[in-house]
């Protein structure tokens, strides 16, 4: 383990909040009582909830210690495939925290919200331009929520056409949210297999496409990091039978300024602003999943929509064919501010460069590790590349072992066991904000791990060794769930 970033250092244990509680402490300021107290009917009130009682410092120290058990993107490379863990610029946080944004009320009168509406209007324009699609809604709260919104629009479209359909085509490499979203719209998933080079063939689509199929959900580049080269033909096949093409835009980071989804047959596409557009993922969210649609689907977008009249902005609360509403207010506004800031900071030129370098980094890793790990699809990749543990099988080493060992080297492991279509997949997405030196270190670590798999497999089996805890018993966790203290 020479030349590796992972080493061991002092961190601090920390008990549960409630074990640190002592009766009578309170960690916040209670505003002074300047009006009379009014007691509610005791029938309506309950006992005060048994929350922990702590001083302000207790709370600060508790969570500071917890944070120190976490590996963040600012700690090190985080090549989680399909997640686009690029640098989260600090200026974005400053913008979102401006009191004029953070303190704005969603139901204040429109003329008091012109700045917020202008920002959202502009962002819609930018996202439309990036995709070559007509119209955008910023409402969806995350990628999956965007999928649902898009699929509901497709559902409404078919309804409007007078003939609802019952099925949806989903490639085997699709993210789990795709079929789950389709199910929520009542569509039965028809799974199709990728071709032998990892991409869809027009034939496989043609085979299942009929007038009962509402459309297809396609991720392009797909989750193997490959561009679906037959996308136009596939779209034509689907369109010819009256179906629509849903684009999962999770992988947009590969193609900004290179391909406009709207120009290659995609009718509706969701964005993951928390991936492509640099907003932090927060250890699970909040994300933001706007969708862009073409003219066919625009009438079905959720309300409210944002309109510009001269120099003022207005909310259109109802449109005749809208699917309705997807979120209580207008979307994850605070996240939108960050994505908007990101787009403005890069402009068209550097967004394109972003995609170029993201693809360069992924190909560089692919080429550098091809002798060490098995490449199920040995073709030029886009922004991510997928290996498997096949070469290591003979030593009884799995993808899980490899990923845990990566932790010891000071990197976050790649996405593992997804896409399902590849056995034991290791999906590496470096993103463009990792420098060549960092990537070289990562490559060196993986090469060394491949050697260890040969010479010292036990060290992989027992990894990770440096983290606060070692491998956790997930089976016990699920068998007898303890979900609260």
């Amino acid at each position, binding site marked *: 383990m020479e030349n590796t970033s992972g080493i061991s250092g002092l961190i601090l244990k920390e008990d549960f909040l409630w074990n640190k509680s002592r009766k009578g402490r309170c960690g916040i300021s209670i505003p002074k009582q300047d009006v009379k107290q009014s007691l509610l009917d005791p029938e309506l009130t309950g006992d005060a909830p048994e929350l922990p009682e702590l001083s302000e410092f207790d709370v600060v120290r508790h969570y500071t210690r917890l944070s120190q058990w976490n590996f963040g993107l600012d700690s090190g490379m985080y090549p989680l495939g399909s997640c686009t863990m690029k640098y989260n610029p600090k*200026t974005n946080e400053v913008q979102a925290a401006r009191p004029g944004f953070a303190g704005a009320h969603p139901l204040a009168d429109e003329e008091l919200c012109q700045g917020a509406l202008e920002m959202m209007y502009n962002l819609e324009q930018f996202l439309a331009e990036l995709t070559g699609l007509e119209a955008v809604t910023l409402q969806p709260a995350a990628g*999956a929520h965007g999928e649902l919104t898009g699929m509901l629009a497709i559902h409404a479209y078919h309804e409007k056409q007078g003939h609802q359909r019952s099925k949806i085509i989903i490639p085997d490499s699709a993210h789990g949210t795709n079929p789950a979203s389709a199910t929520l719209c009542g569509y039965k998933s028809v799974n199709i297999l990728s071709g032998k080079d990892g991409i869809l063939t027009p034939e496989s689509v043609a085979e299942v496409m009929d007038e009962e199929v509402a459309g297809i959900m396609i991720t392009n580049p797909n989750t193997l990091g490959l561009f679906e080269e037959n996308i136009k033909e596939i779209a034509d096949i689907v369109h010819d039978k009256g179906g629509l093409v849903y684009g999962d835009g999770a992988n947009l980071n590969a193609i900004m300024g290179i391909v406009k989804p709207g120009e290659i047959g995609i009718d509706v596409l969701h964005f993951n602003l928390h991936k492509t557009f640099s907003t932090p993922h927060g250890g*699970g969210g909040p994300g933001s999943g706007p969708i862009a649609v073409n003219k066919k689907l625009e009438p079905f977008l959720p309300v409210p929509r944002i309109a510009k009249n001269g120099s003022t902005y207005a909310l259109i609360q109802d449109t005749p064919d809208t699917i309705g509403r997807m979120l209580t207010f207008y*979307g994850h506004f605070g996240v939108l*501010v960050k994505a908007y800031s990101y787009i403005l900071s890069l402009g068209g030129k550097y967004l394109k460069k972003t995609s170029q370098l993201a693809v360069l980094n992924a190909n560089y890793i692919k080429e550098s590790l091809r002798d060490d790990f098995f490449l199920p699809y040995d073709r030029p990749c886009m922004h991510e590349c997928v290996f498997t543990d096949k070469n290591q099988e003979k030593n009884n080493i799995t993808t899980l072992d490899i990923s845990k060992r990566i932790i010891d080297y000071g990197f976050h492991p790649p996405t593992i066991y997804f896409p399902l279509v590849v056995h034991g997949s290791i999906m590496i997405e470096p993103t463009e904000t990792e420098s060549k030196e960092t990537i070289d270190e990562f490559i060196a670590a993986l090469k060394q791990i491949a050697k260890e798999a040969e010479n010292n497999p036990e060290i992989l089996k027992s990894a990770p060794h440096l983290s606060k*805890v070692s491998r956790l018993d997930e089976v016990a966790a699920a068998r007898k769930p303890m979900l609260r203290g």
Partner: protein
Amino acid sequence: MRYLPHTEQDIQEMLKKTGHTSLDDLFKTIPAQCQLKKELDLPEALTEWELDSHMEELASLNAAFPKQKIFIGAGSYPHYIPSLIPYIAGRSEFATAYTPYQPEISQGTLQGIYEFQTMITELLGTDVATASHYDCGTALAEALLIALKKKKKLNKIALSSLIHPHHRQIIKTYLDPRGCEIVDLPFKDDGTTDFSPLDAMDDIAGIAIQSPNFFGCIENLEQAKAIADSKKALFITSFTECLAYGLLKSPGKCGVDLVAGEGQSLGIPQSFGGPGLGILTSSKKYIRDLPGRYVGRTKDKNGETGFVLTLSTREQHIRREKAGSNICSNNGLNALTAGIYLAAAGKNGIRALAQLNHDKAVFLEKELHKAGFTTPFSQPFFNEFVVKAPKGFKEKRDAVKKNKGMVPGLALEKYYPLLKDHYLFCATEVFSKKDMETMVREVK
């Protein structure tokens, strides 16, 4: 560009390794007819400083807390946020991590969410809570989906008309594809839900009400529970003002099956409506029905306590088209934030704040009353209430809105066409007695 580390030399060396002649060449697998022919029509890159002034300009066009006094809640509440909260939640180890797929190096997020789950169930008197949902509206829609799943043969639900109108819209949107019938429960004179339309029905999968409801009134959950039980329907409640449960009897205590709520009041900025925090919590019975992530406690190989995401066999990434929900990313950092808030406020703080919110609202209602407003609904409220305004109010409201940076209440007619001249007002701990007196003086 300062975010892109590649030097020209780096690019050349890397291209050499990949066997490409140029950056463009990397994309040669993309058919030419798919490739964009012209440059993106987007603004030129701004410097950090240009961005600052552009954004400050936009931000300054909004009325916003704390500068402006916006006496509106209706799903988004102005509350004080202790400075420790953004400081701690903004630590990059929390903020820049992904979902804790690798538990060994994510124990901070995991313990933080586990503690959140614990405190939320404590606050609401329930047994289990998920790691979060998007917001109350979407969480409530999911709760109704659970009811429909549990009562497979039924395709009808009942919704109080005093559930936030936007939430009712969301539910309709979510349920539309399944052709589910939604029974609208009107409201009674006292400002609470009227269950009488259910009298003749026995095919209801779930009944949902909000408390405090959209009018601010506190619903009688025990009574509603009895009705739901008599119909063998799942009883679901929601709330938009989480702080109310520092004071009110918890839904869990009232026997509610599923609770969907909005956690924005727990240390999360209003941010023009999002991101908020969807809370989903229930009795043990529904542990395998709630959608989204759970954090569970377990042990590592050495017997040390640790945490993992668990029960994920319910979720889309395992069950795909058979999953009950499609949720993946949720509002985790806001759940952590709410956890920090609950820990800082604690038992006494949350109680005191809740009581103070109520006191302020009662004061404001009285002041408005003195100023000629009437209060149509008699049922007690928490920190929001409806008044009917005297003649001329609309004009005065417009005037103070413009000149004084005050926004006195939300017109209800848009949501309830019969409620002409009715306004929903909110008062929280952020409004001083003087703020309220000044506002009332201006609109009197």
